[in-house]
């Protein structure tokens, strides 16, 4: 959505100095799950929280969805305080946690959805219409009368998603919604969420540890590690910021004997090397301050006894951003 200068979208989520501690192993002190989190998420936005396991993503989602109290700081949903105004907030939100399957195994898909719709006071016919629509969108039609216990994991998760949409919330929290999902179901979910946000007045807060998912789905991404938000912007701007506009891919053979010597060239911000054993070609990914360092760099590579086969500017990825912020890659 394009907004003219000076126009500010409505804040949907706002946190200030949010902190959450958990009791750790006895004698080891408290675990800091969230530390000084300041976050602003706007209407009509899909906001992604990207971070490794244990980063604090679920903790943040639980606080925002009124399931957990903050230790310090404040959090507001549509201007309402998560601690003091939880009942009002609950009318506007829903939560889907990937890998969990709430509901009753002995009831069918349709019956489960009907039950959950009744927690939101949906009138009977209205609920029926909405369930039919959701079931269509998630392609659950063939399983309408199947007991939940008999569904495969992927379909259980689809049911869980349908449940998340059942009250047509203004704000939907998705905690690793594609965790363990098959490729087709995952793609389905992404399309669905992207389509839904276009209906207007909605906000999605999504957590993930899949780079591509964050990149592809989210309008803005916050990178979180050890309870701290390290950076927060559109995927595009995050990439340009970190790369400074100069990420290069250089193919060499054989591989660098002394990679440290290349890394230490003035103006080289980051380096990763990837060997292809079959072809004997090594791909270097370089993040440079600017291109003026190129001649120094190439001579250093030649000093390593390598031949340059191919080189070109490459598109920075979210992974480059992540590596430069966190220091390591995000293992699956």
């Amino acid at each position, binding site marked *: 959505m394009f907004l003219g200068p000076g126009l500010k979208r409505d804040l949907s989520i706002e946190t200030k100095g949010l902190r959450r501690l*958990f*009791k750790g192993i006895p004698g080891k002190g408290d675990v800091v799950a969230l530390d000084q989190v300041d976050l602003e998420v706007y209407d009509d936005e899909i906001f992604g929280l990207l971070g490794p396991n244990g980063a604090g993503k679920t*903790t943040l989602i*639980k606080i925002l*969805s*009124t*399931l*957990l*109290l903050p230790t310090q700081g404040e959090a507001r949903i549509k201007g309402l305080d998560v601690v003091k105004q939880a*009942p009002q907030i*609950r*009318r506007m*939100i*829903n*939560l889907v*946690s990937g890998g*969990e*399957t*709430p*509901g*009753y195994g*002995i*009831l069918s898909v349709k*019956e489960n959805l*009907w*039950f*959950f719709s*009744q*927690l*939101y*006071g949906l009138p009977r016919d209205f609920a029926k219409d909405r369930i039919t629509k959701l079931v269509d969108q998630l392609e659950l039609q063939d399983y309408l009368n199947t007991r939940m216990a008999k569904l495969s994991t992927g379909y259980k998760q689809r049911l869980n998603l349908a*449940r998340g949409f059942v*009250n047509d919330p203004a704000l939907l929290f998705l905690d690793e919604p594609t965790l363990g999902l098959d490729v087709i179901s995952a793609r389905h979910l992404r399309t669905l969420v992207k389509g839904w946000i276009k209906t207007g007045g909605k906000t999605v807060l999504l957590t993930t540890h899949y780079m591509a998912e964050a990149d592809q789905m989210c309008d803005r991404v916050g990178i979180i590690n050890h309870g701290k938000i390290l950076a927060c912007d559109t995927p595009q701007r995050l990439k340009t910021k970190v790369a400074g506009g100069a990420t290069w891919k250089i193919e060499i053979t054989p591989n660098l004997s002394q990679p440290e010597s290349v890394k230490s060239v003035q103006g080289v911000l980051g380096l990763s090397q990837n060997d292809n054993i079959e072809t004997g070609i090594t791909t270097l990914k370089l993040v440079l301050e600017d291109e003026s360092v190129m001649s120094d760099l190439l001579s250093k590579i030649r000093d390593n006894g390598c031949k340059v086969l191919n080189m070109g500017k490459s598109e920075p990825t979210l992974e480059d951003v992540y590596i430069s912020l966190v220091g390591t890659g995000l293992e699956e």
Partner: protein
Amino acid sequence: MISGPTIRKDLSNNLRAAYARMWVRLRGSNRDPIALASEIGLPILTIGAYVILYHAIGLPASAGAAVIVGGAMIAFWTNVLWNMSSQWFWEREQGNLEMYMVAPVSRMSILLGMALGGSLNTAIRALGIVLLGIFVFQVPFQVRDPFSVGLVFFLTLAALYSLGMLFASLFMLYGREAWNTANLLQEPVYFLSGAYFPAIYAPIVPFGLQVAGSLIPMTIGLDAIRRLVINGASITSIWPEVLALIACILILFPLARHSLNYMESLGKKEGRLTLRWQ
């Protein structure tokens, strides 16, 4: 700001939720024929054995009737233990509790729905037991004051299920202990409530036992119902029981509500609403 329409809407939402939860209970537990058969069949075996025993040792037929009534009523206790108290623990394990928490309804209405569904379901089973008594064992019943029977029955259930809600909220944040506690409470109550004796307030039953039994609403209600349907008593002789049951409800229901609120805030404070971190 709280205004009239919001309160009305809140109330209607909560009633809808309670109804839906009741419906789940009725649907779910009547779908599995084996479970259904065992729920009706197994108590009947026990009760039948007592009826035959009492008959064989020459007790009057009213002793058999007392056991039939006891068996029918004790079914509600089993239901309270296994389908209210420990149910809440299962709901948390399944992730349902969190879904109830993010929804704009009170958890009390969910518990209420469980209680309504559970008591309706059990009523069907209890009726089965009574019919068995009448037609198979031909035990005599003598009802002079059907209104009082209904009243005492209703009050007993209300008190029992209030106790169930209290247990449910106490068990909410605990793990396997919930099961063990439910187990622990099953047989002693069968015994203390005198379900399988002809009468608990008889001279042969030690006084201490009578006192302990009287702490359980089941015992009070059961005794009153027995006198109403077997001895043909009327309200004039069982009003102390009626008052005691009302007192139980007035204490247990608010207590359940408070304990639920307390456990919820404790859960939110300590992050114990899911089992994942235990």
